């Protein structure tokens, strides 16, 4: 079955969405991520959507759900790389993704995760 790969990097999980997702794939990712957070005791999730050409209300809701579920499991979620045209459209559609942390790219997204998880910052930089 088709699946979006989830990479483990220390305490964090990395997901790069590179396909035009149909709805079932989005729901599958939601399930897989919560499972991996639990399995690997992950403290943060970084989702790169820089190749996504649209984010509609369904994908927006999926991102919000992932962030909310991760939060309940004591993990932070950062969504990175949203294209400007996608951001404009999403807000006009009526979604502000208010519960989801965002960053411009993977690098600043990782910085944000380390910041949110200050306890691991020293561990990584030493």
């Amino acid at each position, binding site marked *: 079955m088709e699946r979006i790969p989830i990479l483990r990097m220390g305490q964090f999980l990395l997901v790069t969405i590179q396909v035009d997702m149909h709805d079932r794939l989005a729901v599958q990712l939601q399930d897989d991520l919560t499972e991996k957070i639990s399995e690997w005791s992950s403290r943060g999730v970084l989702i790169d959507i820089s190749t996504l050409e*649209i984010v509609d209300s369904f994908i927006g*809701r999926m991102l919000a759900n992932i962030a909310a579920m991760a939060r309940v499991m004591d993990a932070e979620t950062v969504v990175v790389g949203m294209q400007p*045209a996608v951001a404009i459209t999403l807000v006009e559609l009526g979604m502000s993704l208010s519960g989801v942390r965002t960053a411009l790219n993977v690098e600043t997204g990782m910085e944000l995760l380390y910041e949110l998880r200050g306890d691991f910052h020293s561990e990584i930089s030493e």
Partner: protein
Amino acid sequence: MKSGRQEKLPILSSGDVVLARQKVRQWATEMKFTLVDQTKLVTAASELARNALEHGKGGHMVIEQVENSTKNGLKLVFEDQGPGIADIEAALRDGFTTGGGMGLGLGGSKRLVNDFQIHSEPGKGTRVTVVRWK
């Protein structure tokens, strides 16, 4: 409004919703819509195709190149033979949902296009027509 070429696509699965999005993107690109306009139209198409699938139990999309005296546009018609919408005004309101969604589909896609028409008959189905002008 004058009509140009048109094409009809079935919307019977979530894979068809993806294909509908890609078709709209392809035509909007060929017609040289700006990236933001392309994105708005494709996003509206995604919402409306999903509505036809989830609430209308499947249907089809007709994509059509149109022009009026001053400009070109892309017209999309979504038609289903589902249960129809009893209260269209309520359905257009943000947050209105009968499914598990956020209720942004109809009202939200209306904001993403220039012309928006909805015709629905309870028990017979729903037809949504949208146009984005260049």
